[in-house]
């Protein structure tokens, strides 16, 4: 079919195909229609010539390739390793790790709130013998006879409770005991 439409309209219509035509990437039928238009349109011929010229320069003068840095993988690995560890964690370890963490937390709470070194000193044991050279940060005020008796009673009650509750959660319950 011969093109009978105005040239300017055809220029707009064919402009999207000129790049493909300039690289011989169009099917023969489409290429033939473009060639028929180019024969009658100098503006589009200039376009095609410019496209071929620029694409030739770009292909021949492509910027040199940079070699990758030697640390690419090390840096990537450093960032993805935590994700990988979390994602690859075996399921069977979860209860064990949870229990261990719970025990550790309970032991820490026990040390902070129950303060066994105070109890041992009041029952005749040396704190430094039990905990090395660790000392209380401030000297305690002298205890009255009534206080000492109350403390001994508390210690005895705590020991009894600990014996009755062998797991770590008992320590937490003990530390949360209200003051008399």
């Amino acid at each position: 079919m011969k093109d009978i439409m105005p040239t300017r309209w055809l220029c707009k219509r064919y402009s999207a195909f000129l790049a493909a035509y300039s690289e011989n990437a169009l099917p023969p039928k489409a290429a033939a229609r473009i060639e028929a238009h180019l024969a009658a349109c100098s503006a589009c011929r200039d376009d095609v010539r410019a496209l071929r010229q620029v694409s030739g320069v770009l292909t021949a003068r492509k910027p040199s390739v940079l070699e990758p840095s030697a640390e690419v993988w090390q840096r990537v690995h450093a960032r993805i390793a935590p994700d990988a560890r979390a994602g690859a964690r075996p399921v069977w370890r979860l209860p064990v790790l949870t229990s261990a963490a719970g025990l550790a937390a309970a032991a820490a709470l026990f040390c902070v709130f129950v303060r066994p070194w105070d109890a041992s000193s009041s029952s005749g044991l040396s704190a430094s013998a039990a905990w090395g050279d660790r000392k209380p940060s401030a000297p305690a005020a002298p205890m009255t006879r009534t206080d000492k008796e109350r403390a001994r009673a508390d210690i005895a009650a705590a020991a009894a409770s600990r014996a009755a509750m062998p797991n770590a959660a008992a320590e937490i319950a003990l530390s949360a005991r209200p003051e008399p």
Partner: protein
Amino acid sequence: MSYAITRPVATVREQAAATDAPHDSDARLVQRASAGDVAAFGVLVERYQRPMTALVARMTANMDDVDDIVQEVFVRAWKGLPRFRGDAQFSTWLYRIAVNTTIKFRSRRQNEQALSLSAETLTGGIDALSSTLTSEGGDPFHSAQRREQEDLVRRAVLALPEKQRAVVVLHYFEGHSCEEISHIVGCSVGTVWSRLHYACKRLKGTLGALEGAA
């Protein structure tokens, strides 16, 4: 910034040596990496770090950013692996991440200096540039001239709008077909050709303007 001639990624090689991973296909390595196999992902990084570096370096103005962007590309790929369905090739998917990451990184650079094409860089514009392609030899003068022209072309491409720059780099510098590019950038093949057309017209104008200025 230092770029090595070789790519000594000892950790990857050591890890991969025990599993024959270097000979595995991308699909197999992706499958293993999706399951949390870091060594398999390391082989993919080693396999694609060179083309990714080339692409990023040709799309960004600041060479100091290349390492950071390439690193970010692979980290994003690792995080996105669970969502990678395998509809496209892994390389296509990775190129898409690289293009998007580079564009985003570049747009974040608020204080990036505007690219300017100096008229001193080349006299004669695109016509002179085109004519020297066949007349060059191997002597130092022509080597220096070639480097100068490469730099000019690079800066002219960097001055293009992002979408046009991406298709120009992928097509003319990286050698991808327009169909591949359509998958990478997520548009039709016709749109890719159209962007190439307008990019070339703009480059002709940019490089030709030097001729008038000289």
